[in-house]
C-alpha cells in the first residue's frame, strides 16, 4: 500500500501547496528564533546591569565597613584617645574583628565577581601547590575538629611546582575544603593530594549531605546552591564554588564533583597542570 502511494505522481498544484506550507512553517521557526534571540539579548543586558549594580553597592559597603574598622582600630591603638577601659576593650575588639570579617567577605565577593567577568588580573608566579594545600589544610583541620569531624590529610611524594596565583589558588582550596566541612554534619573528610602524569590532583571526599542530580549541573555556577543549602549552612552565599571554577579554569585546570546522590557524601576534585 505504501509503495503504491509513493508511486502516485503529485500534481504541480499539490507540489506548490506543500512547498508553500513548508515555507510558512520555516518562517514561523525563524520568527520564533528571532524572538528568542531578542529575549536573550534583553536578558544579557539586564544581567549585566544587575552585576554592575551589585559591584557598585559592594564597593560602597566595603568603604563603609573599612571606615568603621579604622575607627575601632584607632580607638584600640591610638594613645591620644586615652586608655581604653577593661570593660570596653573586648567590645571594641569584637567590633574590630567583626568588621574585619565583613571587609574580607565583601573583598572576596568583589574578587569573585571580577573573576567571573574575566577582569581579574592574576599574579602568576612559580608556586609550590603542596605548600598551599598544607597551609590551608592545617588551618581548616581545626574547623573540622570543632564539628567533631575526622580529617585525614594525605600528600603523596612528588613535585608540585607549577605556575599560579598563590593567593587565589589558596582561597579556592580553602573554599573547597570549607565547603565539605560545612556540608558534613557527621563523619569526616579525606583530603588527598597527588600527581597523575603531568597533572596535580587534589581530592576532598566527605561523608556529607551529597549532591542531588538536580544540583549537580548548577553546582559550580553563581548562586548554584541546593534548595536546602541554607538549612545546613546559614552563611552560604552560593558564590564559593563558582569562584573556585573561575580560578581553576584561569590556571588551565578543571574542577568537578562526584556524588552517589543526596546524603551519600561527595568528592570534589581540583586538577591543575604541573
Amino acid at each position, binding site marked *: 500500500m505504501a509503495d503504491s502511494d509513493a508511486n502516485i505522481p503529485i500534481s504541480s498544484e499539490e507540489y*506548490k501547496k506543500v*512547498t*508553500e506550507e513548508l*515555507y*510558512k512553517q*520555516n*518562517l514561523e521557526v*525563524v520568527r520564533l528564533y528571532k524572538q528568542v534571540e531578542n529575549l536573550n539579548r534583553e536578558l544579557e543586558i539586564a544581567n549585566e546591569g544587575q552585576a554592575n549594580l551589585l559591584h557598585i553597592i559592594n564597593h560602597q559597603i566595603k568603604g563603609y565597613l573599612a571606615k568603621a574598622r579604622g575607627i575601632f582600630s584607632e580607638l584600640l591603638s591610638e594613645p591620644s584617645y586615652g586608655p581604653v577601659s577593661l570593660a570596653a576593650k573586648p567590645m571594641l575588639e569584637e567590633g574590630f574583628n567583626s568588621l574585619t570579617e565583613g571587609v574580607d567577605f565583601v573583598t572576596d565577593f568583589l574578587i569573585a565577581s571580577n573573576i567571573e567577568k574575566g577582569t581579574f588580573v592574576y599574579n602568576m608566579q612559580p608556586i609550590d601547590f603542596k605548600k598551599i594545600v598544607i597551609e590551608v589544610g592545617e588551618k581548616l583541620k581545626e574547623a573540622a575538629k570543632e564539628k567533631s569531624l575526622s580529617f585525614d590529610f594525605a600528600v603523596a611524594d612528588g613535585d608540585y611546582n607549577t605556575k599560579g596565583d598563590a593567593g587565589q589558588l589558596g582561597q579556592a582550596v580553602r573554599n573547597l575544603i570549607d565547603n565539605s566541612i560545612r556540608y558534613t554534619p557527621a563523619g569526616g573528610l579525606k583530603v588527598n593530594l597527588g600527581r597523575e602524569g603531568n597533572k596535580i590532583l587534589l581530592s576532598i571526599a566527605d561523608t556529607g549531605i551529597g549532591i542531588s542530580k538536580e544540583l549537580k549541573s548548577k553546582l559550580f555556577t553563581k548562586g548554584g546552591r541546593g534548595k536546602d543549602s541554607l538549612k545546613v549552612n546559614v552563611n552560604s552565599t552560593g558564590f564559593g564554588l563558582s569562584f573556585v571554577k573561575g580560578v581553576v579554569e584561569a590556571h588551565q585546570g578543571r574542577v568537578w564533583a562526584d556524588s552517589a546522590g543526596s546524603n551519600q557524601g561527595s568528592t570534589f576534585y581540583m586538577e591543575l597542570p604541573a
Partner: protein
Amino acid sequence: MTTLDQIAKKIIKEQELIIGPLAWQEAEKVNGVHIIDAKSGAVTVGNGDSRIVIDKLVSQYERLFGRASREVCREAAAPFLASLAPAEMPLSLK
C-alpha cells in the same frame, strides 16, 4: 552600494534564514541580480531599471513559495524604503 543593492542583499539574506542556500541559487537566476560573493552578501542589481530587478527577485521567491515570501521581502526592505524617492520604489514593495 546603492539603496536598491542593499534591499536586494537584505531580501536574499532574509530568505536564506528560511530556505537556506536555495535563496542564493534562486536569486542568481534573476536577470540583473549579480552575486559577487554570497558568503559576505555582496550583491548588486543592474542591467537596466534596478526597480524592475527587485520586482523580479520578489516574484522569483513568490512563484516558488507563495504570498508569505512576498511579505518576508517587504518586511526585509521596510527599513530602507524611507530613503527611496517614490519614483525609485519597486512596485512589489509598495
